[in-house]
């Protein structure tokens, strides 16, 4: 059987690899090619070399978007993971222990389902929902209540220094549920004896969390960090649907995908948009490589 292995493996791999190359790798390669042209989407493109990239360097909107990705990259994973860890801890090991088995808080099963709800909704629907939540007048969910109490409405998406954070809040709200489930799964695989032993030694819940749960969850945290980081490079749907004036006010919430969309489908500058796409590609790649490098450490086996 040994000598027939390679034809067999290749035979099986051929179809998926061919599909992957045609529909994923090839378009990527083409994006690189298009980024070197002034293609406007209709007739044959003309080669312009690195012109588009030079133009990127003094495009204010591009740098604004990059800056926002920086903020998102720090805020989104940090806030989401912190909240998700807290909830996951409460749901799994935060309650009383019965029969030597750690339990979640009362009603944990119910909460777990509720937390997962946002994950089930399509992103566009979430954005539309939050339009209602953030609406700046008496028909908004938040401002409607505030105005009942005679408080001035908060202009969530309109105030330039508040708008990006309003968007981040939506991204966090949407992501938390999934990571609660992910961390719960991770916590479930931590043996109960470790907790028991630690408790006998007089560990408090806080100590349990920082000295037992967190180190044993390290791998899962890494996955979460990489995924959330990648999500921070996207954020397109929420920004496109929710923000004022497409990434406004005055570019205060714009992201790269938004600028790519605008250049490609509003200005018909496909070449320039592709150059932005290539820039985004390298940013994402650099981030993933850096994260894996920085978080590399010995894993704990049990």
């Amino acid at each position: 059987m040994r000598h027939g292995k390679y034809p067999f493996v290749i035979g099986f791999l051929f179809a998926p690899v061919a599909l992957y190359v045609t529909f994923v790798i090839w378009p990527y390669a083409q994006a690189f090619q298009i980024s070197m042209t002034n293609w406007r989407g209709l007739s044959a493109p003309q080669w312009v070399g690195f012109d588009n990239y030079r133009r990127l360097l003094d495009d204010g909107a591009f740098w604004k978007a990059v800056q926002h990705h920086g903020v998102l990259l720090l805020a989104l994973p940090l806030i989401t993971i912190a909240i998700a860890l807290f909830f996951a801890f409460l749901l799994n090991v935060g309650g009383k222990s019965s029969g030597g088995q750690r339990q979640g808080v009362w009603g944990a099963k119910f909460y777990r389902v509720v937390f997962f709800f946002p994950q089930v909704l399509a992103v566009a629907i979430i954005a539309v929902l939050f339009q209602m939540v953030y609406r700046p007048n008496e028909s908004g969910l938040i401002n409607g209540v505030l105005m009942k109490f005679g408080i001035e409405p908060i202009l969530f998406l309109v105030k330039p220094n508040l708008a990006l954070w309003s968007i981040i809040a939506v991204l966090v709200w949407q992501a938390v549920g999934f990571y609660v489930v992910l961390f719960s799964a991770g916590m479930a695989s931590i043996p109960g004896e470790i907790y028991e032993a630690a408790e006998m030694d007089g560990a408090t819940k806080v100590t349990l969390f920082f000295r037992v749960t967190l180190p044993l969850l390290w791998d899962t945290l890494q996955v979460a960090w990489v995924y959330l980081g990648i999500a921070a490079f996207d954020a397109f749907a929420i920004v496109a649907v929710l923000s004022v004036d497409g990434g406004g006010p005055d570019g205060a919430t714009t992201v790269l995908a938004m600028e790519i969309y605008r250049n490609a489908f509003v200005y018909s500058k496909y070449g320039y948009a592709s150059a932005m796409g290539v820039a985004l590609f390298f940013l994402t790649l650099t981030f993933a490589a850096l994260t894996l490098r920085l978080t590399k450490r010995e894993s704990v086996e049990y």
Partner: protein
Amino acid sequence: MSITPEHPAALDRRAVLRRAAAVGVLATPAIGLLGACATSGSDGDNEQVAGGTKSEKNPLGVKEDAAIEVVIFNGGYGEKYATDVHEPLYKKAFPKAEVKHQATQAVSTVLQPRFASGNPPEFVNNSGEKLMDFGALVADGQLQDLTELWDAPSVDDPTKKVRDTVVPGTIEAGSFNGKPFVLYYVSTVFGIWYSGKLFKDNGWAPAKNWDEFIALLTKIKAKGITPYGYAGANAAYYQWNVILTHAAKIGGTDVLKNIDNLEDGAWQQDAVKQAATAWAEVGAKFSDKSFEGLKHTDVQLRQNQYKVALYPSGDWLEGEQKKDTPAGFDYQLMPVPSMSASDKLPATALRATAGEGYFVSAKSKNPKGGLEYMRQMLSTAGAKGFTEVVKAPTVVTAGSEGFAFPPGVASSQAALKAAGQDVFNLYFDGWYKELDTEARTATNELMFGRINADAFVERIQKRADAIKKDSSVTKFKR
């Protein structure tokens, strides 16, 4: 429990993680795939049909049994006017021809690939939020020159050319560097709208000059109604339209011509600055900060609820709001008020144009058929039928005669008549989408009090200069 160093060979969690991350990376900038729709297979592998015999009934020489494909933007005007009026007219003229009909709400999504692959439909209603960039289409030679159509004899009176059956300015509106490529079909008048009922109940009168206007706004404000507002979230161009209309009235129509032609310092002309200063004051004192976060339908609804008194828009507004307008609301149009007695244009002057663009694809199979379809649209029967279905006036002069328009359109048509020769238009937003975007952003900054008029004109001028220098953007002149 033991702590061991990572095992190098086995497929451990870390390796899986690394691979998963790599897949994630590849999956994310999916937008990078937008170029996926191939740049390779373009340029007309499309065999065009031969012409037919020219005759009195067929002045353009259309091949009688050649099919044409019609793509209609299914938006505010729907698609019924095409399926019930124009397509049957074409069928009647050429019974042997097949008319393929398609309606869409996202024109560019549906048609971009067809143009890229060299197989575009004959006749396109390029409109709506996802319209294709006319400038790019023209620059690329995708649009059929309409000179032949405008010079052809009209359907109703063979002694009259088609160009003499439409309102003046129609052909210019669809011309690029002096050549007609686009048929703008619907007559559109811009101005400031109010409820006739609200004004009558309160004894208010529309303002003609700036002092009257400010006095009117003050009275409305005292009544507890937001005097003026537009939607910042997606319709800021309704407001730059007001500012530029005002500028044209102050400084004459050349102000707009300079802007369209990307002349140096066009945006920094005194008239633009004056208008911007005046409207910034309206934004600061007589509007509502929360409108920046609202969409046009939200603000329009508030006007229908008598919470906003004045709202700038074109005369599609009445039709768009039909469902929400309370009985007796009585939409009325008031031209943008004049500034002072030294204005170059009278108070009745206004911006009017033809809207809703249609074109014939030069690289389609049967472009002659597309031109003939337009000729049928421009017949009295075609125009009357359109007006009856969608309740909007067309550019065909004979088409609107004797039709009882609803109050809003009636008032805008009356205002258009009162304006006489003092009707003007502007084109930069269709020619240079980037400049439109910048003007929208700057308008929100100005009207919601984050920048002043000087900064407003300066930042738009900067973008206009950049576009002027950008060799990849095709330039237009008028």
